[in-house]
């Protein structure tokens, strides 16, 4: 029992450290890839190819004055970024990140999942939904009209994508017959042919679209679109509080990448000669790149267009998909 607690604490600390470091690195990757696609150089001055830009940005964020506007609701203003960052990491608790492995030189078997609950998917989706309280509260707590618009857009976004996420995942869940992400992984263990993406292509596309909406990525970055609402919910934030929103956002992007990889693309099963651990990292890296690629290539859409898209196009498609899946499974 004691060993279990200690192992859990170590796992949680490791995930926290690695993912937030990756989130910091993600900002650099994002700038580099956007620059590459738009034929610019991106950050070049700090270190070789600008790699040390992350350190410079980190120092800047940590040492910047933590400014709270006088009209703001202080406590809520201070708590909001923590909600975003914390829920992003709590969601990762139910995601199996790598295949089981034994520690070198010992015979301890490590399962790289903090808590293997039998409703993994539901928990992750619910936690990421709760994460939207961060932008919502942040926008309402600062006395700033851009903030209010940002949080109104958060509510719109939440009410739009949540239904699509749930319905799009329902069809794969029906096929696997379990809500545990590990069961999804074992279901696709017999090679590329058994990946759920081949039998559920519609669900895959719907999940990706709603995943983009969930992580505020372009084309759904309504909450903080600079051209329209200054910075939306983050207008009054500076320093590390602003940084926490971004760590949360990038952690969510990584979580969506893991979910898409595990549910639709065979998870951490070994792929041809690539071992499972490397395979899932490659898949998640691909999804991360896809998000940046879409950001560079697509304009963003209006809030009412998002609602139109989610309720009038994606939701009927998802329901049809569930119906067809049900008929195929029964007949």
């Amino acid at each position, binding site marked *: 029992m004691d060993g279990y607690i200690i192992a859990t604490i170590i796992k949680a600390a490791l995930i926290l450290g690695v993912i937030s470091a990756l989130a910091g690195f993600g900002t650099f990757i994002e700038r580099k890839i956007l620059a590459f696609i738009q034929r610019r150089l991106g950050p070049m001055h700090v270190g070789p190819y600008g790699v040390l830009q992350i350190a410079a940005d980190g120092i800047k964020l940590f040492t910047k004055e933590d400014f709270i506007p006088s009209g703001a609701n202080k406590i809520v203003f201070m708590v909001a970024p923590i909600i975003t960052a914390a829920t992003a990491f709590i969601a990762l608790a139910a995601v199996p990140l790598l295949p089981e492995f034994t520690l070198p030189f010992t015979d301890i078997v490590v399962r790289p999942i903090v808590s293997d609950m039998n*409703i993994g998917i539901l928990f992750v989706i619910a936690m990421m939904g709760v994460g939207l*309280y961060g932008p919502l509260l942040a926008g309402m707590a600062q006395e700033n009209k851009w903030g209010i618009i940002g949080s109104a857009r958060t509510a719109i976004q939440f009410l739009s994508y949540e239904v699509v996420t749930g319905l799009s995942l329902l069809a794969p869940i029906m096929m696997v017959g379990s809500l545990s992400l590990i069961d999804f992984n074992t279901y696709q263990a017999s090679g590329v042919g058994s990946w759920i993406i081949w039998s559920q292509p519609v669900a895959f596309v719907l999940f990706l679209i709603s995943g983009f909406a969930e992580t505020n990525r372009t084309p759904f970055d309504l909450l903080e679109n600079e051209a329209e609402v200054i910075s939306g919910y983050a207008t009054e934030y500076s320093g590390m509080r602003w940084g926490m929103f971004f760590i949360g956002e990038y952690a969510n992007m990584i979580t969506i990448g893991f979910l898409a990889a595990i549910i639709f693309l065979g998870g951490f099963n070994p792929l041809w000669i690539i071992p499972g651990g490397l395979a899932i990292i490659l898949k998640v890296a691909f999804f991360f790149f896809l998000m940046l690629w879409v950001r560079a290539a697509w304009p963003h859409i209006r809030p009412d267009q998002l609602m139109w898209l989610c309720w009038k196009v994606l939701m009927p498609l998802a329901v049809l998909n569930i119906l067809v899946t049900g008929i195929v499974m029964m007949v």
Partner: protein
Amino acid sequence: MEAIAFYIFGVLIVGLFLVTILSRDILYSMSALAAGMVMISGLFFILGADFLGAVQLVVYSGAIMALYAFGMMFFDATREVKEKHGSGLLVFILSGASALIMVIIFAAPAIGNKIEPLVQATKGVDNPHAIGEVLFTKYLIPFEVAAVMLLVAMIAGIILASKKMDESLSEVYVGADPETEKKEQV
């Protein structure tokens, strides 16, 4: 282990809901309500009812998000709300009676010995499966009735909101001429 977690969650839940009802700041009240609902799901997880815990998270985070939207429309979130206090006696009687009823409801099963569970918990079946089995065998009719009720509510909502559904919202307000607006107000 479980006792420690239970007391942590218990204190947090009671504290948060106290903030909900005692605070005059709309933002504090709603945030405390949302946080309290999330903490309640923690109790479900401790009891091993994972599915109900996740449902609690999904349903209440969504429902309270809609509440926030209303709060945003009707109140200035950074100001305190002025509450009207009516008859003190009425408030006392109503709150006292509801508190008493709650205590009786939760104390009765603990004291009485005539109460036994309708469905025994089965060992070795995980939570979602157990709930599904009970819902679709023993409680099929209440479940379906609830589903039909939700469907009716959904259709009613669509009818209420469907007046200008064919047009984009932004076009409705930019393009509307004053004449038709007046007619609608009448």
